[in-house]
């Protein structure tokens, strides 16, 4: 007779405790959204969260913020044997390396190439996934659509080393399969103009399918009633695309445009580096390759740090500019 009693008692006690705790919690939440406990109570309850953050924070401090102290190098003499703050400043108020960089022919070529290739990517490469997403959206057979998507995502998972080794085989001038099929001898990667075209084409080939994902997600958010209404109004496929689909993905397009504009001076390394060859160095050398060759191979650390800093700062400025521009035109922007 006693056992269930005790059991019952315990249970009520437990639940009473629980509800008391719940009441306490919710009362505190209501009174003060910032958890108005004393630091001691707060830490006792949530110290584990700080413990979890410990390693990631350590990572960011060591591998992301500590390198920023080396940015000083960009304003100092080239000497890495002592910490950068002990080295003397260079002349021209410390900006000598920047001035030297802008007088350097290699850097100017790299700067021009980076901007040119990025602009080509922006104007030719960016509309492609939008077109492809609209195409996929219009595809009427669901199962076929899924297979198409899987196949179109494939190139994204190949590395640039793989792609360049395949490309240089397929596009070879004398015995490449493409020239053989066309019956021509076009040096696809042998002249600067052709190389640029190949570079842009391969970028589209690799990422176009992958980049449709974002647009397709935005497309599913468009209410089907808009399409129905357009259909009732007698709109055909093209008019529906123009008046419903495109306006529906406009915010997404703007956000991606901002991101791309922000990266106008940013440069990938793998893509130009693996695709480049001696014949087209005038077109293929970008800032990232310049930094690698001068800095890591040539040990001109101060100069290449300055170049990298210039690149980072310009990236941030462009990002801020394009974001505020988007906001001016009434778009949401990225933050």
């Amino acid at each position: 007779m006693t056992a269930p009693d005790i059991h019952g008692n315990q249970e009520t006690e437990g639940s009473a405790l629980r509800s008391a705790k719940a009441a306490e919690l919710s009362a505190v939440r209501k009174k003060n959204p910032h958890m108005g406990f004393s630091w001691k109570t707060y830490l006792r309850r949530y110290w584990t969260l700080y413990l979890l953050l410990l390693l990631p924070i350590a990572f960011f401090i060591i591998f992301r913020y500590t390198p920023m102290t080396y940015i000083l190098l960009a304003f100092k003499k080239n000497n890495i044997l002592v910490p950068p703050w002990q080295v003397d400043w260079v002349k021209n108020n410390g900006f000598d390396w920047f001035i030297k960089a802008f007088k350097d022919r290699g850097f100017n070529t790299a700067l021009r190439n980076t901007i040119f290739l990025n602009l080509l990517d922006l104007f030719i490469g960016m509309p492609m996934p939008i077109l492809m997403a609209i195409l996929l959206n219009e595809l009427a057979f669901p199962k076929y659509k899924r297979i198409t998507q899987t196949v179109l995502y494939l190139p994204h998972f190949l590395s640039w080393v793989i792609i360049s080794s395949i490309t240089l085989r397929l596009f070879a001038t004398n015995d490449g399969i493409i020239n053989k099929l066309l019956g021509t001898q076009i040096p696809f990667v042998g002249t600067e103009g052709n190389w640029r075209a190949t570079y842009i084409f391969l970028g589209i080939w690799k990422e176009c399918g992958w980049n449709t994902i974002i647009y397709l997600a935005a497309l599913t958010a468009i209410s089907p009633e808009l399409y129905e209404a357009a259909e009732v109004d007698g709109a055909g496929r093209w008019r529906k695309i123009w008046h419903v689909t495109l306006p529906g993905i406009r915010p997404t397009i703007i956000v991606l445009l901002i991101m791309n504009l922000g990266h106008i001076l940013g440069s990938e390394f793998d893509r130009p580096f693996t695709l480049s060859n001696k014949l087209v160095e005038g077109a293929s050398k970008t800032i990232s390759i310049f930094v690698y060759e001068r800095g890591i191979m040539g040990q001109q650390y101060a100069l290449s740090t300055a170049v990298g800093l210039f690149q980072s700062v310009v990236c941030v400025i462009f990002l801020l500019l394009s974001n505020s521009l988007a906001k001016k035109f009434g778009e949401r922007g990225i933050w």
Partner: protein
Amino acid sequence: MSVTNENNHLSSKKLRDGMIKSKKTKAGDLIIAGICFLLMLLCLLPMLHVLACSLSSADALVKNEVFIWPKGWNTAAYDTVLGLPVPQGQDYVPTKYVTSMGWTAILTVICTLLSITLTICAAYPLTYTNLKGGRFINFIILFTMYFSAGTIPSYLLLSRMNMLNTPYALIFPNCISVFNVIIMRSFFFGVPDSLREAAEIDGAGPIRVLIRVYLPLSLPVIATLSLFYAVGRWNGFSDALMYLKTSDSEKYWPIQLLLYNVIKNSTQTTEQAAQEGFFANGVNKTIQMATVMFATVPILLVYPWLQRYFVTGVTIGAVKG
């Protein structure tokens, strides 16, 4: 009120039904399907060509007879890459390809486990919106996405830490991607607060809530981010190129760097590479095609199964990023 609502509902439903009925396959649909088919071919043919080359005889390759079907079928290239068959009375000696592939696989597993753990550790506390200092921590994490010190400062740091030419240089410097932290955090935000509160009322601390509530619900996004990290490491090339420079460290070369160097060295000059394609003679060509296949196939086997998940992951990242 309710009647009109119902009427509206009915009429739109009727309309939709009518639309579905009127939706028969038109010529336009077939044209679109055709274009999609061509696009698929564009993505698949290069890979099929490589596969065919790797299975063809060296002779056929030199004569340039291979398109997407192997000519003079043989698997000699794969045998060479794998170091097979083992000569009688000798032990199996792994070739440099096999060694590098195995090392890259181990490296990929280690990096993925470490990265995904750290990403969870970074993302979960930030879902507590009332965490003291949370906003500041959030800021210092996000800031690194927009501004980075650059290649050389990172390189100098690693050199100061004596990490150059060690495998650690491939593991630690890029083990957390801010973008992935954002994706993870957004997914965590999507978990209903009521679940967390219920667990808290039962006396569970933050860690227990994470393990019992959040992680089981987040398996799709964990799978997605693991795929991203794994692909990133498997395909990673530039960090190895920059950080592993001495000949001692060649044993730590991941497969991509090995492949790059093999292909680069197989031609005497880069001019020749541009003229003739990368490969000097037929035997080399088939072997290199086989290596390319080896370096590609693991990823190609995995990603289609995770497609549903990574589509969600990318979408979350795009919305919140």
